[in-house]
C-alpha cells in the first residue's frame, strides 16, 4: 500500500465521522468539548459558523451525524450530538457581539432572496459581512418557511425560530413579509445583481383515489400542518388516518392527538424497515399511543352522503425472489373506519410563478436544473438553494446549500469564476500539555446514552404549544459529553522517529495497530490483532520505518482516541493532534480574492 497522505485534509476529516457525515461539516467534537468546559456561548458560536441555526437544529435536525458516530461502533448508542447542540442553544450567553461586523458602507450590490427559510437566511447571513444589500421576500406573515409552517410547535417553539432568524435580519436586511413573488419575470426586471430562490418544496403530494373530491375531510399533510401552524385549523375528527411513513406523517399524527384525535393511526403500505421516518420521530409517536399499521395499501375513500366514513385498503405481503428482487402480493382487503384522512406521502417543488421563457430550465418533475456545485440555474445570476434546488431533503442540507450559493453569488457579483472555489483546509496542533497531560478528556467513559427528559404524558396534550422535550439537565449533559470519543484529536504518526519497540501496539485497548511488512490492503487488514474488517474505514499506512523498513499500520475503525499509544511512545513518533477543519465561506473567498489581487499588483 502507498503511505497515507495525512496532509490532505480529507483524511483526518473522514476520521471525525460526525463532521464528515454532517452536510455542513459542523465541528461536533469541538463544540461538545466547549460544553464540557461550560463554554456554552463558544459552543453556540462554533455551531453557528457552520450550521447557522443551532437552537433550531438542536431540536429538529435530521442528525445524519448520529448513525455514523464512532461511539455506535464501540458502544451501542451514538453520542446525543443533536441534543447537546440544543444545550448550547439553551445555555448560551450574549453571542451577538461575537458575530462578524457588518460594514455600514455597502458594496453597491443588491441581491433578491425569495423565501425566508433556512437556506435563504444562510445566504443572507454569509453575505452580510461583505456589504451586500438584500431584499428578502416571504409570502407568509412570518419567517421560517417549512420549519415554521410544517414543524409542530410542540417540537420547535416559535421563539427559537424568532431568535435565530431575527439576529440575521436585525443586522440590516430588508424583510418583506406577506409579499409573495408572483412573477419571476417582473423581479428580474428590477435592478438586482443576483437572485436567490429559496422557496422550498411547498406542495404536498396528492392521492387521487375514488372518493377524493366528494368530501372536505381529506387533507394534504403539508397544507394541513401549515393551517394548524397559523391557527386556521384548531380541531380534527376523532378517528384519524394518516397515510404515509415519513417524518411528515409523524408530525401529522402527533398534531392530530393534540387537536382532539382519539384514535389516530399511521397507515403505511410497506414494511417497517422501508419507512422513511427517523427512529427518533417514530418512537415518540408510538409512545403517545399512535397505532402504526403496516403493509396496508390505500385503495378507496369511502364517502357516504358527503361524509367520510372509512378507507379501503389492500393488505400486502412482501418477499424477495430468487434474483433478490422485491415482490409484493395482495393477500386480503380491509376497511378501516375513520372521519378524517391526512395525506403525508411526500412533497414536491412548485414554481407556478417562474415563467418558462426566461431561460430557467426545469426537468420533467418540475425541479429546476441546478449546478450541484455552484447552485446556479441555467439562467446566469439566478441561484437556487434548499429544497427548492434539488427537491425535499432536510434542514442541515439546506443550510449547506445556502453557504455554497452565497459563495457563488459573491463570485458572480465580482465577475469571478464560480467553479474555482477554495478547497477545505486544516489545522493540526498537538494536544500535549505535559507528560500524560492532554488538552482533552482522554479517559474512556462507560456510561450509556442519557435519555432527554420529556413532559409527562398527562400534560402533553393540554396545549398544542407545549414543547415535549425538556432538554438535558446539567447533571445529564455533563455526563453525556464525556461519551464523545474526541475523534478530532488525531493520532498523528511520524515514521522517522519510530524505534519499533511495539509499545503502542501492546497498549492499544482496541488492538487496532500493527507493524508489518508492506503488502496488499486485504492482506494487511488481516495482520492486525483484531482484524480490520470494516472496509468503510480507512487504514493508515506510514512511510517505511527507519530500522527495519516495515510500516506502521492503524485501522481507523474503532480507535477511541484515548492517546495511550502516544503516552507509551518513547520517541513521540505518535502524537495526539487537534484537527480543525477550515471550511471556506463567502468571507474566506472574498479575503482570498483580495490577497490574490494584491499579489498581482
Amino acid at each position, binding site marked *: 500500500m502507498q503511505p497515507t497522505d495525512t496532509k490532505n485534509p480529507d483524511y483526518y476529516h473522514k476520521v471525525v465521522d460526525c463532521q464528515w457525515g454532517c452536510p455542513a461539516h459542523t465541528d461536533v467534537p469541538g463544540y461538545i468539548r466547549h460544553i464540557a468546559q461550560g463554554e456554552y456561548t463558544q459552543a453556540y458560536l462554533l455551531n453557528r459558523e457552520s450550521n447557522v441555526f443551532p437552537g433550531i437544529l438542536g431540536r429538529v435536525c435530521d442528525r445524519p451525524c448520529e448513525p455514523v458516530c464512532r461511539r455506535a461502533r*464501540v458502544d451501542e448508542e451514538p453520542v446525543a450530538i443533536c441534543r447537546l447542540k440544543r444545550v448550547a442553544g439553551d445555555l448560551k450567553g450574549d453571542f451577538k457581539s461575537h458575530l462578524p461586523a457588518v460594514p455600514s458602507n455597502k458594496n453597491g450590490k443588491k441581491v433578491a432572496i425569495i423565501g425566508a427559510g433556512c437556506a435563504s437566511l444562510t445566504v443572507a447571513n454569509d453575505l452580510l459581512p461583505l456589504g451586500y444589500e438584500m431584499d428578502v421576500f416571504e409570502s407568509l406573515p412570518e419567517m421560517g418557511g417549512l420549519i415554521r409552517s410544517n414543524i409542530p410547535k410542540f417540537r420547535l417553539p416559535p421563539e427559537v425560530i424568532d431568535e435565530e432568524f431575527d439576529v440575521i435580519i436585525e443586522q440590516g436586511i430588508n424583510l418583506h413579509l406577506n409579499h409573495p413573488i408572483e412573477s419571476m419575470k417582473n423581479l428580474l426586471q428590477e435592478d438586482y445583481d443576483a437572485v436567490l430562490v429559496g422557496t422550498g418544496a411547498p406542495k404536498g403530494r396528492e392521492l387521487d383515489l375514488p372518493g377524493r373530491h366528494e368530501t372536505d375531510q381529506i387533507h394534504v399533510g403539508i397544507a394541513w400542518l401549515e393551517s394548524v401552524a397559523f391557527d386556521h385549523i384548531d380541531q380534527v375528527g376523532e378517528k384519524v388516518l394518516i397515510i404515509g411513513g415519513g417524518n411528515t406523517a409523524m408530525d401529522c399524527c402527533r398534531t392530530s392527538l393534540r387537536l382532539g384525535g382519539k384514535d389516530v393511526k399511521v397507515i403505511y403500505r410497506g414494511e417497517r424497515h422501508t419507512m422513511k421516518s427517523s427512529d427518533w420521530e417514530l418512537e415518540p409517536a408510538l409512545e403517545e399511543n399512535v397505532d402504526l399499521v403496516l403493509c396496508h395499501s390505500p385503495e378507496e375513500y369511502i364517502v357516504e352522503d358527503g361524509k367520510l366514513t372509512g378507507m379501503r385498503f389492500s393488505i400486502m405481503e412482501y418477499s424477495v425472489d430468487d434474483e433478490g428482487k422485491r415482490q409484493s402480493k395482495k393477500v386480503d382487503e380491509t376497511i378501516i373506519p375513520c372521519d378524517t384522512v391526512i395525506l403525508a406521502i411526500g412533497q414536491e417543488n412548485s414554481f407556478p410563478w417562474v415563467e418558462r421563457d426566461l431561460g430557467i430550465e426545469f426537468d420533467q418533475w418540475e425541479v429546476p436544473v441546478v449546478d450541484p456545485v455552484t447552485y446556479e440555474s441555467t439562467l446566469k445570476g439566478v441561484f437556487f438553494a434548499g429544497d427548492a434546488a434539488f427537491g425535499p431533503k432536510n434542514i442541515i442540507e439546506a443550510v449547506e446549500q445556502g453557504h455554497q450559493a452565497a459563495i457563488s453569488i459573491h463570485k458572480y457579483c465580482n465577475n469571478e469564476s464560480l467553479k474555482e472555489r477554495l478547497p477545505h483546509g486544516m489545522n493540526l496542533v498537538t494536544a500535549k500539555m505535559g507528560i*500524560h497531560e492532554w488538552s482533552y478528556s*482522554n*479517559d*474512556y467513559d462507560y456510561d450509556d446514552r442519557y435519555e432527554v427528559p420529556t413532559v409527562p404524558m398527562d400534560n402533553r396534550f393540554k396545549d398544542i404549544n407545549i414543547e415535549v422535550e425538556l432538554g438535558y439537565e446539567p447533571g445529564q449533559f455533563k455526563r453525556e459529553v464525556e461519551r464523545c470519543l474526541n475523534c478530532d484529536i488525531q493520532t498523528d504518526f511520524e515514521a522517522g522517529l519510530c*524505534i*519499533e*519497540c*511495539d*509499545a503502542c*501496539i*501492546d*497498549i492499544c*485497548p*482496541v*488492538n487496532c495497530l500493527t507493524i508489518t511488512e508492506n503488502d496488499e490492503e486485504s492482506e494487511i487488514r488481516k495482520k492486525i*490483532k*483484531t*482484524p480490520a*474488517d470494516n472496509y468503510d474505514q480507512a487504514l493508515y499506512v506510514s512511510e517505511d520505518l527507519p*530500522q*527495519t523498513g516495515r510500516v506502521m499500520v492503524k485501522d481507523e475503525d*474503532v480507535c*477511541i482516541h*484515548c492517546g*495511550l499509544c502516544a*503516552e*507509551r*511512545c*518513547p*520517541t513521540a513518533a505518535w502524537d495526539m493532534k487537534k484537527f480543525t477543519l477550515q471550511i471556506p465561506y463567502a468571507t474566506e473567498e472574498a479575503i482570498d480574492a483580495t490577497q490574490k489581487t494584491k499579489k498581482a499588483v
Partner: protein
Amino acid sequence: MSYIKKPNIFRSNAPKNELGMTYTDYEGAMSTLCAGCGHDSITGAIIQSVFDLNIPPHRMIKMSGIGCSSKTPAYFANQSHGFNSVHGRMPSVATGANAANKELFCIGVSGDGDTLSIGMGQFSHAIRRNVNMLYIIENNGVYGLTKGQFSASADVGSTAKKGEANKQVPIDPCQVAIALGATFVARSFSGDKDQLVPLLKAGLMHKGFAMVDVISPCVTFNDHEGSTKSYMSTRESKREAVYTDYIAPFNEIEVNYEKGSSIEVDLHDGGRVILRKTDESYSPQSRGDSVKNIRAASEEGELLTGLLYIDESQQDFTDTENMIDEPLNSIDHETLCPGNQALKNLLDSYR
C-alpha cells in the same frame, strides 16, 4: 506509564482461542515501566503465546524476583497465580511450586541482574535440576531500577549513557546454560515478536528447563549510540541461526520445509518444534556445536538468535526425584501428613 487505566472495550470480531477467551482476557494490570521498555513488548509476546496455546489462566503460575523485569508478571494473565520472590531467589520458589503441583504451566520472568548476578547460583541449580519451567531473561545490560549501571551481561566496550565504556567481560546466559546442561536454550529480541512468540510457545511446551534470553532494550538508560543492547544495534547485530516454529498437537504443518535444512523435534505434549537452520553445518542438537557457534558469532560481533539448543530426551526434576503425578493440594490431609507415629516409623527404619 500512563495515568488512565487501559479501557476495556469489547470487540465482537476479536479472535477467540479454544477456551473462548480473547487476547485481552489474558492481559494484566497497566504497566508502570518506562514508555517503550522492551519488557512490555515481551509481556505482549507472552500474552500472545498463552492465548495461542489455549492455556487456562488458573493452570498457570507466574514467578519472578526483583528488578524491572520482575515487575512484568503483574502485567499479564491477571487471572493466574503469581509469586514475587526475594531478589535472585525465584528459581527455588519455582522449584517448590513445581514439586507441589506439576500440572501447572510455570513462567519465570527474570532479568540480567536477577539471574546473572545475585541469582546466578539459583539459576545454575534450576538448570541442573531441569525444573519444568519457561525461564525468561529480560536482558538489557543495565540495572535500570538503580539508574543504569552496567550489569553482568554488558558487552566489553558498550558505553553507558554518559559515555563511559564497560571493561568487564559479559556473562552470556546461553553459553552458561548450555554448559550447565540445559535442555532448551534460545535467544531472541523483544522487538521481533515473529521470532519470539514461537520460541516462548515451544519453551512452555518443552518438558524441562527452557531458557529464553531476550534482548530487551532499556529505553531510558541503554538505547543510545555506543550501547550494544539498543534497539538499533540489536537489529543490526542479530543473526537468526535457527528459525523456530511451534506446531500444536494434531495441527498439520502448513508450510513446506526444504528437506535437510530442517529438523523436527517431537515434544512431550504431542506438539512439534520445527527448526530451520540458516547454516547447514550448525546442529542445534549438539551441545558442543551450539557453544562453538555462539562463540564464533560473538567474536564476529554478531548476536546469534533462535532456538540454539534443544534436547527433548532428558527427564525433568519431578521425574528424576520420582514424585507423584497428583498435585499435592488434591491429596487429603491424612495421606499428606500421616502423623507422628508414621514419622517415628520412618526414622526407625534408618536406625
